[in-house]
């Protein structure tokens, strides 16, 4: 009986309910898309921040001026503590001299890893992967200009009595110290400086939030002994602050839309309750209890809320995927845990919309049935 009545009511008010459903589903769609993004946007944006390069540096406890270096084995420790998949590059810095006896900073590193870890390098010339023992080198734009070097030229560098013959494979523009340096592969520089197995520092890109990065840095510090493990604060701080603001913005937007949806559902529901007066009068006259009428109405709005939530979630999932593609070039996967949340929200809104029910309690059957 209850079910049949409910079904009748729903069918009977198709137009009106469809209108409420549209308001509810569109609100739910946007809210669920925002929630989905809330989960994923941090990860996506963190990836964008990769362009900032390394966020942790491991260096000797003393400054460079003292000529301190690290043992190459430290790399194994780093791999053990931070995981093998953390992007890292060792550097050995020396001041070499050109044929014309002009000093230049020569950096030895893993060329491929270094270029990947400093994606902001603009390299003119060869990008192809370099072999580990390659005698190719990358020359900073400023250094290339001062020495008159072009791609393909040979560059001879001296350190003490040793000499290295390098081929210029590319020119780096970075807007930093690299512009004044020559970057070559690590073994070549180690041989030139007679510092086999030594490095000046290691750069790491640790994924995660500022807090996680700090934790990894602390673990590295504990495992590596007498070295300085420094998270590059410039990056961690800015990343954290920005992500916080973007997330706050998304949450505020969701709250606004929620209020709007609630209000427009309330308006529709009030209209519905007013119209229901005749039905209520009739039911009351036939001896139906107020409780029963209220239960029917509540059932009706709950069905509406669930339907609005589910439809909204589905549309919101499509919206999420579309926005992910448009903005980040990769789909943001919709979260299943958003579904119950959104359905609960919408049922809540619909029930709030049932507030005008109080009006029904005051209905006097006789007056209504007389048609006033």
């Amino acid at each position: 009986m209850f079910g049949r009545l409910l079904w009748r009511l729903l069918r009977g008010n198709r137009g009106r309910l469809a209108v409420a459903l549209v308001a509810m589903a569109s609100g739910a769609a946007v809210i669920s898309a925002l929630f989905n993004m809330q989960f994923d946007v941090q990860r996506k944006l963190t990836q964008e921040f990769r362009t900032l390069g390394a966020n942790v540096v491991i260096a000797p406890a003393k400054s460079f001026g003292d000529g301190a270096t690290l043992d190459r084995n430290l790399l194994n420790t780093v791999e053990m503590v931070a995981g093998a998949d953390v992007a890292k590059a060792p550097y050995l810095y020396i001041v070499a001299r050109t044929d014309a006896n002009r000093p230049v900073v020569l950096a030895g590193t893993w060329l491929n890893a270094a270029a990947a870890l400093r994606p902001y390098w603009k390299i003119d010339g060869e990008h192809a992967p370099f072999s580990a023992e390659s005698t190719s080198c990358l020359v900073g734009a400023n250094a290339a200009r001062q020495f008159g070097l072009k791609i393909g030229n040979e560059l001879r560098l001296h350190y003490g009595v040793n000499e290295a013959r390098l081929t210029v494979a590319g020119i780096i523009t970075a807007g930093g110290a690299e512009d004044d340096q020559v970057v070559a592969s690590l073994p070549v520089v180690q041989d030139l400086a007679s510092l086999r197995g030594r490095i000046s520092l290691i750069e790491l890109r640790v994924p995660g939030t500022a807090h996680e990065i700090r934790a990894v840095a602390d673990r590295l510090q504990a495992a590596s002994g007498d070295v300085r493990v420094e998270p590059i604060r410039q990056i961690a701080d800015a990343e954290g602050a920005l992500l916080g603001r973007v997330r706050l913005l998304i949450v505020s937007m969701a709250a606004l839309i929620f209020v709007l949806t609630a209000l427009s559902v309330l308006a529709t529901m009030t209209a519905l309750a007013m119209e229901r007066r005749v039905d209520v009068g009739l039911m009351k006259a036939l001896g139906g209890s107020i409780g029963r009428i209220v239960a029917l109405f509540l059932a009706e709005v709950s069905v509406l809320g669930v339907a609005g939530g589910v439809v909204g979630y589905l549309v919101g999932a499509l919206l999420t995927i579309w926005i992910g593609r448009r903005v980040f070039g990769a789909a943001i996967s919709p979260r299943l845990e958003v579904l119950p949340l959104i359905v609960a929200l919408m049922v809540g809104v619909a029930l709030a919309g049932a507030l005008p029910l109080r009006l029904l309690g005051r209905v006097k059957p006789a007056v209504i049935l007389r048609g006033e």
Partner: protein
Amino acid sequence: MFARLVGESFVRNPRRILLAAAALAVGMAVTTAALSVALDVGDRLAREFRSLGANLLVTPQSDSLPLQIGGVDYRPVDEGAYLNEADLGKLRTIFWRHNILGFTPFLDVPERIAIGTDGVDASVIGTWYEHDVSVPDGSSFRTGAKLTHPWWKIQGRWFAEGSRECVLGEGLAARLSAGGGPIIGTTIQLPPKDEPKETGFLRPLIPLVVTGIVSTGGAEDNAILVPLPLTQELAGRPGKFRSLFVSALTKPEDAFSERDPNSMTPAEYDRWYCSPYISSIGTQIEQVLPGSNARAIRRVAETEGRVLTRVSGLLWLVTIAALVAAALAVAATSAATVIERRSEVGLMKALGATNLMVGGIFLAEQFVLAITGGAIGFLFGSLLARVLGTSVFGTPASLRLVLLPIVLGLSAAVVLLGSVIPLRRASRFEPAPILRGE
């Protein structure tokens, strides 16, 4: 008659009208707030990105190759070119002067310092923390490392301008105070009397009071930071500096800005020069600082451009989605009010009103609602945007009157959308069954 009919319907059922107007007002408030925030967000986030510090590096053009390792320049002080500190005020006279948020000159001197009887090699970095620069137009501009290096954290306090005070890098402080007590408040000597520099002359001992310990996560952690005039004195280069970090608000690079300005037509060059691209701001800085070379710090500039493009794209799409949701919700409300009044339609028709007349009355009523609701919504939304701006970015979003006509137009369009379908259906009603209550 027409006006009276419309007026009547407002008076007769104030609650219904109130609800519809509230839905409209809230919808339009959301629209206004979302649009204001979205219009502002690029600017706001760009400003936020300045927490990454400087994005332009200015160095002397004819400089010898800097021997910089780990942020410390190992060139002797008598080598290389310098820039004039006196020219710095001109940075606030360039076309995009208001986009120059801060700049800090640096002059490093490698020195041997003494504390008690010990000596340590460390570089002495002369800079500004908070310094008033006088601008040629008569005003003054406060800038320094506080703005260009906001992530520097101080324990204690910064040195005062023009004083004999210094701030120690965290690493250096740890080495110096090993075994000793607190280092803040002690005096260090610079450089020691009995160790003349290779330049040959004996310089007087300079005592410096340590006022704080700075942690930067960079090379400065192993250095001493002092007011700029002090290193100029040590280097024998009064009024000079070697590198300048500039923090500028810029527009993300795009295909146009990456072209070589020399290959542009005059019209294109003007457009490029008058856009706040980092490359055009760099060029303008080179023009006011003779013999300088301004380069984008690509690490910061690239990231900023990428993230800004992404975030503002994201917010625009979210805004559009919010607008659509608001429009649908408002349209639904206005549809509900029209459906509710079917019997009135029936009555009017029974009394001989044409469909056109009925539609006119209802639409007029809805439009009055739309304009009132839209205007209230605009006011409320501007307020909301202020609150949002303050809570998210710390400064209120600016009031944009441009949005008023847009919001009113939108609200009219939305009620039209909401009323047209039920009105069309109402026009097909036969008056008799409706009046009978069927």
